[in-house]
């Protein structure tokens, strides 16, 4: 167990290291410079060069990389080139929007996808099951920003049930804040539910045909009871694996959905930073996103082994 965890942690650290190198050097070779953005279009090349020196952008790449990493490791993500404000609080602020948004989207996706998938599996090879499956297909085919715009038009503009965009922070109270996040979370959750429902469906269909479920019924459990006591846990195993992978898609989805609903989250922060060539802010946000995906996938890997006794923790 210990050696497995140690190896997973080492793998995680190595992955994070490689990711940071990739993020840093890919951004470093991109054209454009924050110095040019700060000085505007009228600046002379000489002034831009001087500004670059002032910002520390002329230092050797490896030094700048080392400086950035050392800062990250000590919990200091640096200072924005453009606004000259520390990045830490900005990211914290954005996370207070994006974190709950992704969390809600994932929860909706899991609930919706789970229920839809189990129902579709139970109605396998019947008309109602096919309808449920095609509902999933539609959810899969509609991009989340389209779903978002449709939700804004129908639920927000026509029905006036929920606010259509913007976010005024958690200080306004949990209720109003959740109301503002409801539609974006739904837009994220629909696509997620569609994807998850497909995995849940095939997983449950397989479990329904399994011998051990038949054994459970032969012991006197009715189908529903057998499914709850024996089926769902077995069916959940493959879905857990997918969840780790889905998180990456969910983060990307959140960035797009934040644009549609004009939410001041990581997406808005990232896109502004790219527009401004605020390279260090871009590095930090991208690193945060990539790091989250890596950490969650490691957690999934570990939890998978806790869920399934057949995969030893020593392996």
């Amino acid at each position, binding site marked *: 167990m210990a050696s497995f965890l140690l190896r997973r942690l080492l793998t995680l650290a190595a992955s994070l290291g490689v990711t940071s190198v990739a993020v840093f050097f890919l951004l470093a070779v991109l054209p454009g410079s924050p110095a040019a953005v700060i000085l505007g279009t009228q600046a002379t090349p000489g002034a831009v060069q001087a500004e670059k020196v002032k910002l520390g952008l002329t230092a050797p790449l490896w030094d700048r990389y080392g400086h950035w990493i050392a800062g990250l490791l000590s919990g200091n993500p640096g200072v924005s080139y453009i606004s000259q404000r520390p990045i830490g609080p900005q990211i914290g602020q954005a996370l207070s929007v994006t974190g709950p948004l992704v969390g809600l989207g994932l929860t909706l996706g899991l609930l919706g996808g789970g229920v839809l998938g189990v129902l579709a599996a139970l109605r396998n090879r019947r008309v109602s099951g096919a309808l449920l499956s095609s509902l999933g297909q539609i959810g899969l085919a509609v991009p989340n920003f389209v779903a978002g715009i449709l939700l804004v038009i129908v639920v927000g503009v026509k029905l006036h049930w929920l606010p259509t965009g913007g976010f005024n922070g958690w200080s306004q109270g949990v209720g109003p804040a959740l109301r503002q996040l409801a539609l974006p979370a739904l837009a994220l959750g629909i696509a997620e539910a569609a994807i998850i429902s497909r995995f849940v469906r095939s997983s449950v269909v397989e479990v329904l045909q399994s011998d051990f479920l038949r*054994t459970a019924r*032969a012991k006197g459990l009715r189908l529903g009871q057998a499914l709850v006591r024996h089926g769902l846990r077995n069916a959940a195993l493959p879905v857990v694996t997918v969840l780790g992978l889905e998180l990456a898609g969910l983060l990307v989805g959140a960035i797009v959905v934040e644009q549609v609903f004009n939410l001041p989250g990581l997406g808005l922060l990232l896109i502004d930073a790219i527009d401004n060539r605020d390279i260090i802010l871009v590095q930090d946000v991208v690193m945060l996103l990539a790091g989250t995906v890596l950490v969650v996938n490691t957690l999934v890997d570990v939890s998978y082994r806790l869920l*399934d006794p057949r995969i030893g923790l020593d392996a």
Partner: protein
Amino acid sequence: MSLLDVEGLCVDLGRVPVLSEVSFSVGTAERVGLIGESGSGKSVTALAILGLLPASMTARGTVRLEGEDLLAASERRRAQLRGDRVAMVFQEPTSALDPLMRVGRQVGEVLRIHRGASRRQAHAEAVRLLGRVGFADPEAIARAFPHQLSGGQRQRVVLASAVACRPSLVVADEPTTALDVTVQAQVLDLLRHLVEESGSALLLISHDLAVVSSTCERLVVLYGGRVLELGRTAEVLEDPRHPYTAGLLATAAAVSDGSGLRGRLPALAGSVPSIGAFPSGCVYRNRCERADEACLALPRLESGQGDHRFACWHPLETGRAPEPRTGEASQSVVQGANRASGEKR
């Protein structure tokens, strides 16, 4: 009234008949063998009795357990009876157990369902049952997961949970087929021992004549979803009246007495048609040497001596086996059967 009365059981897969007019009975604490090649409808019979047929299949007729018609009963009622009054042992012990649940809990689960046992009571009883099926360290086995056990051990676990509630009937569908030859006999002995101990009747389903004949008091020969012959084991084996039964005996004998090793193994001509492709009239007529125009009509189960019955227009004469060698051979299977049951007593 018998413990289990199957009468005119028909199972259809869509419009295709899988079982037709299957009738037989099992008495209290009696051991009955259901025998036939694969595709004959043995497993479907078992599932129909338990009410576990796949949704694509529909059953008609009556299946009475202790007088109660199971086919007419609600699913709720059938679930109450399953595991409690009638238990099932499946062919594949490997996949029959939940891979994520400790073995002890799976054995104790039946008691929690039907006896309202607490978690602790169920565990204690599970350990006791695991001891009864021959595990030296039942506590450790109870804590194990199925993948940590061998095939034979898993089937012992399945047997333990099958007899947990002392059911009046245990249906065992090829319980030893998936096992190593070396543990087949052990598991079969254990099964016989357990049903005897708990006073349960046994419906043993197998394609293996030796397995069935050494265990069961009566035999039902199934082919093409129909009962071709049934009666007391000794009578059916010594004096088979249906050509199909005689053919089965000849092949089994050649294997068991080694005579087959010296020449070609006798085999039943042709192969079992797929479901729905059996001929009209006598289902065996396209493989039968004795078939003629009479066989175009469906033969009914005719009474022979005692409760020995067979469905054939041209039955073998009583007391005479079809070929000399088959005659000797079937004798040796019977002797083998007697030997096996003698050892047990």
